[in-house]
């Protein structure tokens, strides 16, 4: 028997997925746990209303107050901890220097994104930024999704500012205006996508129910039912895993290649997860091996899960687009599925096609070949090349889908040197490997929450960085 529906009752505090607790900027107060209870505590501690449901007119307002900025800073810091703290145990890759490229990318984003996001808002208007988010309600195989939208604020602002503070090249009162620009862009896209007043899945008990009924009904016509351990179940599961792996690899071992929404309740009591797996991103030069194997931009999978069969206690679609359940293993309880292919990022939805499960094994070969070729290519790259490529994956890809839909990507490249690396960040390359900065200092600041220093009371909202010390 399942208990997951109890998680949606107002008084329910959810399960704990981990034993650790979070402190952040709340020293002297009760530590904050993960999950629904953590979200409730953060909302209670907020000084403003920005963590409650907000209206379209709130979102269209260009300016956050300092209290709102600090509430968002605190909430995002906890949310980052909530979704990533256990991942922090994974250690070095042995293949891709991820901690190094991540930290450079955070800082680069904080320096470079504000002018590009401001230009984009100036070009199309605030309402159109919200409309970019709304596109995700109608389409599948689209990178305007939880993880990308979350990254704008959580990574570009939160971790970027945290890293620069840790490196002691900025101070808490610096770059207030730029922080506002980043967070406003994030809020607008997320609000437009959800349209229920919340911006993050954690605020809504880890649900991301963005697709309209008509969209889901149309997709569901392609679902094939299967028995556990049947050949079709095995083919579907194998394909899901292999495509997910290639999506991770093409995106340098980060989650930008993956996008879940749901869990959508189905009429028969089952749950639906819609999963985008971005297996070929044309912006990356190394994706040529995916082209050679005819791997499309995205495979979208519909996973129908039986909550009763697995005794589901809680399901979270978190803000980095990843599904976690208790019990953990939902794979044997997938009772139906469908696969769709979107060949290019801008392929019209009318041309997105269904791939029958009987055809998945032949497509799996292309995925396996692309994975091996990509791996062989990466194995021959220098550390510097891998870090540079990984940094581009973060810095470019996290806002690429929004710029593409805004029509400002080309302008960002030509007028704003989007693909150039800021000289300050180029120099930081040599600093981040000293004294364990990348391996220990920044992860500690991020995962303890100690590094997300608040903006000081009374700070001038227009403040950038007026002097160097």
């Amino acid at each position, binding site marked *: 028997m399942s208990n997951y529906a109890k998680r949606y009752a107002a008084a329910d505090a959810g399960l704990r997925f981990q034993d650790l607790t979070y402190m952040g900027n709340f020293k002297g107060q009760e530590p904050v746990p993960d999950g629904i209870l953590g979200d409730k505590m953060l909302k209670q501690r907020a000084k403003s209303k920005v963590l409650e449901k907000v209206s379209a007119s709130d979102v269209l307002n260009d300016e956050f107050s300092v209290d709102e900025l600090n509430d968002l800073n605190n909430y995002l810091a906890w949310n980052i901890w909530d979704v990533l703290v*256990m*991942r*922090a*145990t*994974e*250690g*070095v*890759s*042995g*293949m*891709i220097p*991820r901690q190094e490229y991540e930290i450079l990318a955070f800082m680069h984003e904080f320096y470079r994104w504000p002018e590009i996001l401001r230009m984009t808002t100036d070009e199309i208007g605030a309402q159109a930024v919200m409309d970019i988010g709304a596109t995700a309600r109608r389409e599948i195989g689209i990178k305007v999704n939880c993880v990308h939208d979350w990254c704008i604020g959580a990574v570009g602002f939160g971790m970027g500012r945290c890293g620069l503070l840790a490196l002691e090249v900025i101070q808490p009162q610096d770059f207030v205006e730029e922080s506002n620009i980043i967070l406003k862009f994030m809020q607008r896209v997320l609000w437009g996508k959800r349209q229920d007043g919340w911006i993050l899945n954690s605020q809504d008990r880890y649900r991301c129910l963005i697709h309209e009924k008509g969209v889901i009904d149309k997709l569901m016509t392609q679902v094939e039912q299967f028995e556990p351990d049947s050949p079709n179940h095995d083919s579907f*599961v*194998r394909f*899901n*895993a*292999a495509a*997910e*792996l*290639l999506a*991770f*690899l093409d995106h*340098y*071992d980060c*989650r930008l290649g993956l996008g879940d929404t749901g869990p959508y309740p189905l009429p028969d009591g089952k749950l639906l997860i819609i999963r985008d797996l971005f297996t070929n991103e044309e912006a990356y030069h190394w994706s040529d091996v995916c082209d050679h194997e005819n791997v499309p931009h995205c495979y979208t999978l519909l996973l129908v899960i039986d909550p009763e069969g697995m005794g589901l206690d809680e399901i979270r679609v978190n803000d980095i687009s*990843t599904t*976690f359940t208790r*019990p*953990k*293993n939902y*794979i*044997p309880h997938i009772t139906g599925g469908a696969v769709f292919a979107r060949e290019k990022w801008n392929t019209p939805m009318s041309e997105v096609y269904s791939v029958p499960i009987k055809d998945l094994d032949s497509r799996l070969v292309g*995925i*396996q070949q692309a*994975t*091996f070729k*990509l*791996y*062989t290519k*990466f*194995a021959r790259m220098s550390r510097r090349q891998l870090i540079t490529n990984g940094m581009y994956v973060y810095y470019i890809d996290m806002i690429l889908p929004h710029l593409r839909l805004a029509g400002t990507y080309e302008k960002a490249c030509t007028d704003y040197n989007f693909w150039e690396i800021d000289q300050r960040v180029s120099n930081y390359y040599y600093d981040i490997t000293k004294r*364990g900065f990348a*391996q*220990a200092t920044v*992860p*500690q600041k991020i995962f303890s929450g100690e590094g997300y220093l608040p903006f000081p009371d009374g700070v001038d909202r227009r403040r950038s960085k007026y002097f160097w010390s």
Partner: protein
Amino acid sequence: MKVLAEGYNSFDTSKTPVGTVKYLPDPQSVIKLIQSGKLKEHILLVQGGTTTFLAPALSMGAIGVITLSGAPESHLGILSREFQMPCVMTTYLVDSESRYVTGGDNAAHFQEVIKALDGKKVQLSCADRELGRVVLAS
């Protein structure tokens, strides 16, 4: 049944893969193993809990993995569950006090575990919800 090591269980499963532990120190060793055609004879032992290092081995059907760091929430934890491939993570020897420390210098710990497990024929036991075991196979 002699339990050699334990760690986080990526997911609970009745699968009990048996194979000779093979430590993979670098990408070249991963490529070489795949090209040898003997991938499915081995339980793979790796230091990190990330996905990319083992990418082609996972894609080509690895039967089981032991990691010395990482958790079920790591990318490799997620992928092992999606592949339904048993995976014991942040593994430590049951007869040793040495443990992995996040962000610490774990070189000696890694060497101890690698020395104890590499080349041994083992079975992974992952039926428990939280704890995965590495058992000496007869």
